[in-house]
C-alpha cells in the first residue's frame, strides 16, 4: 500500500514532503524512544510517535522509514518540518492517540 492511501484512509494531515506519499508502506512501528526505533523499526515502516523533537527526522531518515505520524494533534515546529523537507521525509499529524491510530492502521494493512 502507498503512503498516500494510508494518509487518505486515516485522514492524516500531511505537513512535509508530499512527494514522498508515493512511497510503499511495509508496516508500522510505534515508539517514543529514539534508540528503540533505531534498533527495531524496519525500512518502509510508518513511525507512530508523540515525539516532535528535531532528531526524529534523522532517525527516520537513517532507517529509511516511509514517514512519521505525530499523534494527539501535537504541533510540529517549523524547524523540524524544514529538516524533514530537506531529508525527504513525510511528517503527518493525527488528532488520535497512538493506540487508536495504530489500531486503525493495523486493520488497514492487515
Amino acid at each position, binding site marked *: 500500500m502507498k503512503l498516500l492511501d494510508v494518509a487518505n484512509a486515516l485522514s492524516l494531515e500531511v505537513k512535509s514532503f508530499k512527494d514522498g506519499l508515493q512511497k510503499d508502506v511495509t508496516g508500522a512501528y*510505534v515508539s*517514543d524512544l529514539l534508540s*528503540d526505533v533505531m534498533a527495531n523499526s524496519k525500512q518502509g515502516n510508518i513511525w507512530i510517535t508523540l515525539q516532535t523533537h528535531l532528531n526524529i527526522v534523522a532517525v527516520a531518515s537513517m532507517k529509511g522509514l516511509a514517514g512519521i505520524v505525530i499523534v494527539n494533534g501535537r504541533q510540529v515546529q517549523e524547524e523540524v518540518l524544514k529538516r524533514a523537507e530537506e531529508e525527504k521525509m513525510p511528517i503527518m499529524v493525527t488528532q*488520535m*492517540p497512538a493506540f487508536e491510530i*495504530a489500531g486503525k492502521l*493495523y486493520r488497514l494493512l492487515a
Partner: protein
Amino acid sequence: MTLKEIADILGATFITEPDNPDLHIRSACSSDMMSAVLYYHSPDSLLITGLTQLHVVRTAEIAGIISIVFVMNKRPDERAIELAGQKKIPLLTTPCCMYTASGRLFRAGLPGCSHK
C-alpha cells in the same frame, strides 16, 4: 475487556499475578512518554509501554492506570515488580511490539483513552 482476555489476545504472561483476572479494562494508552500518560489518562485503563523503570509504575499509579503491559518481552526490575505488587497493579509482558499489541487489542474492541 478483562485482563485475562487481554493476556490471551497478546500471548502475554503475567509478571505479577492479578488478584482478579477478570478485572475489567475500559481503554488503553500506548506510550513511552510518561507525561502523555498523565495527560491523557482515563479511569480503569491499560498502559502499553516499552519502558520498564520504576517510575513507570509510579506514573501508572498516579494516573489511575490499573494494569501495565510491557512489549517485546521486556521485564521490569525487582523494585518495580515489588512496587506494582504493593499498589495492586498487575504487570504483563508480551512478545508483541507496541504496534501489534495496539492493533490486536483495538481490533478486539478495546477503545483508546479519550483524547482531551
